[in-house]
């Protein structure tokens, strides 16, 4: 599907990409609904990051390989990168970390460069958690740093070769559609594993 510029309503952009990737998934009971929901969530959270702190232009793209059932989602910006975002947010440790370490920090829950009252540092954390729950792959490149998550493995940390640097942030997620059956369950597990949701009796008052 065509590359989209992240310059309009985030929710509309997410809807357009998710609809293209998972036709019919707008309907909650449709077989593509879980893929639609996952794509919408990833694109809107990553696009929020682009708009709120990259101070650059962002692009989003998606691809499906029907024969293999493989789905790829990508979002990139030419902004200031993850490490500089932490520096600008005044986080005391930010001057002591390199680009790759800054990416790892961004994958850690409750570390945010955006300040309050937004997402309290769960955007990239949750995206990586969702990818893990879907037994997928995640690539994050920012500055000179590269972090790759593979199914069941620890993060692989490296730097771009030959002194190369990417002045922005690239996030690519890939997973097989067969692992995305129920988005609510994926989200619940990702939240619990990130320490963002306690397993305890609900204290909220829910009504149908």
């Amino acid at each position, binding site marked *: 599907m065509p590359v989209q510029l992240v310059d309009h*309503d*985030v*929710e509309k952009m*997410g*809807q357009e990409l998710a609809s293209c990737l998972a036709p019919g998934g*707008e309907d*909650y009971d449709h077989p593509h609904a879980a893929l639609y*929901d996952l794509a*919408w*969530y990833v694109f*809107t*959270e990553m696009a*929020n990051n682009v708009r*709120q702190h990259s101070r650059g232009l962002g692009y989003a793209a998606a691809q499906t390989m029907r024969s293999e059932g493989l789905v790829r989602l990508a979002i990139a910006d030419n902004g200031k990168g993850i490490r500089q975002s932490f520096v600008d947010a005044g986080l005391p440790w930010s001057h002591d970390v390199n680009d790759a370490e800054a990416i790892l920090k961004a994958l850690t829950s409750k570390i945010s460069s955006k300040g*309050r*009252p*937004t*997402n*309290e540092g*769960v*955007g990239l954390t*949750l995206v990586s958690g969702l990818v893990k729950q879907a037994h997928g792959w995640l690539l994050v490149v920012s500055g000179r740093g590269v972090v790759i998550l593979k199914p069941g493995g620890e993060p692989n940390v490296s730097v771009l070769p030959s002194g190369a640097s990417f002045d922005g942030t690239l996030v690519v997620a890939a997973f097989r559609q067969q692992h995305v059956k129920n*988005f*609510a369950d994926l*989200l*619940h597990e990702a*939240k619990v594993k990130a320490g*963002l*949701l*306690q397993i305890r009796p*609900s*204290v*909220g*008052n*829910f*009504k*149908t």
Partner: protein
Amino acid sequence: MKMELNLVEEFGPRLADGEQAAEFRMGRIDPYVGICEEMVLNFTGIRNANSSFINALLAGAIEQHGEGVLQCLVFKGCNPVVRVLVESAISLGLDKVAGREIA
């Protein structure tokens, strides 16, 4: 007094922008917390939401007003995804309150 906020009417069926949510909370929820016995957040018809929006809407309210705000908030019509997001935002808000009490 009972108040109901219909989120589909306010934002449409998709809730994505945390800054919008924070603005909405400060203007439409915070001023009424001490006044309303029951404040219904009606999510009926909301198809998608993300953590940015729901955390900004709820975690901040709990942090500002304390755990007691949950006595008056009612979450109506949540689909399973929205329910996970609401539960998580409540959890985040309670953690913040607990952290503040310890500090």
